[in-house]
């Protein structure tokens, strides 16, 4: 269990190590609040999808494997969408189509294929949570910088005063690319230094 968490949060991180889930990383990280909701939604879907695929793995015919996985993932995403519309309608409106796009997030299908098909349900559930947390902390770090520099605010509250000129590029896609690239560069640099010293 420790290895699963350590891998997904560190050396095998889905975003900066495997470079999965980039679309939503770029799309929603211009606003911190939307990022948090996206992360919670993804953790929920990944964990439950992993567990469900794992429970069915011994009975699932290989030729319909991908169809079954897509059906399972899509069902959980629809549940997230319905729950948001019912109990958090403002956030549902702000996120708009990006909730539905969780279905296309490569991390979910990637973990189902790479882990859930060959591991027991409990461990697969934990792997889903760990992958989701690994994805989340990268997105949150990027979102804090993007919203702060791009809008001068955090969570919708103004933080930087009138003296700050908003960097519009930070709320656009190129800003997300730059932040993600810097994040990957820093992490790889730290990992390489550790390998050299050991």
């Amino acid at each position, binding site marked *: 269990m420790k290895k699963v968490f350590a891998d997904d949060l560190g050396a095998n991180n889905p975003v900066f190590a495997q470079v999965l889930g980039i679309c939503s990383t770029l799309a929603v990280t*211009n*606003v911190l609040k939307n990022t948090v909701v996206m992360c919670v939604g993804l953790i929920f879907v990944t964990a439950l999808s992993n567990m469900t695929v794992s429970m069915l793995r011994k009975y699932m015919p290989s030729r319909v494997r991908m169809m*079954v996985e897509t059906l399972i993932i899509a*069902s959980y995403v629809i*549940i997230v969408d319905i729950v948001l519309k019912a109990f958090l*309608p403002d956030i549902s409106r*702000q996120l708009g*189509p990006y909730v539905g796009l969780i279905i296309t997030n490569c991390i979910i299908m990637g973990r189902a294929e790479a882990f859930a098909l060959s591991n027991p349900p409990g461990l697969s559930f934990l792997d889903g949570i760990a992958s989701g947390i690994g994805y989340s902390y990268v997105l949150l770090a990027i979102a804090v910088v993007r919203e702060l520099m791009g809008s001068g605010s955090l969570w919708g509250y103004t933080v930087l005063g009138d003296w700050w000129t908003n960097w519009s590029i930070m*709320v656009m896609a190129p800003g997300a690319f730059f932040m993600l690239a810097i994040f990957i560069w820093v992490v790889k640099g730290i990992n390489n230094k550790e390998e050299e010293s050991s």
Partner: protein
Amino acid sequence: MKKDGAMSKRVFPVVFMLVITIVFISITTVIYTYTKDQIALNERLRLKEAVLYSAGVSLPDDPAKVERIYDERVEEVKDDSGRVRFFAVQNPDLSSTESFVIIKTGAGLWGEITVTVGFDMNLESFIGIEILDQNETPGLGGRIGEVWFKEQFRGKKPPLDTVPEGDPTDANQFQAITGASYSTAAIKDIMNTAQEYARMEIRNK
């Protein structure tokens, strides 16, 4: 025997897929059935808030108070098929004590944008707007739903034009959203066609 084995290899995946589909569709249907009344309530409340906001009425936080104000001040004018043509709103807080609100839809960047537009009783100037539904990019075009953007339209008269940067200098200008030119243009088109649409719906009552 060989034929039976081959048949079951073909049939089992189809049956498996069918069973899984029925199970998951049933689960999502149950959850939808359980929440659909709440979702409909949320959408109805959202419309009422939008109509009051567009008519310049101050909105309380309590949904029950919003409902009461709506029932007291708003008349829904419908056509023969039951479609709401416009809303007539009594607002003693404004100089124009009666205002009219219409629902207008236009093409945005990723889909339709639906807006409530409030006019004074002469249908000459805007009292306010509210974004009911949009699929614009969150953080960019999605900013059309932010308060600072919507407040720009109060008291302005069509036809409107945009200012890419800085504060508007003319009475018929409003500030565009940086990085969201399509979404801003969509709102401009909706606002500039809203007056004619309102005259058609309201003066034909």
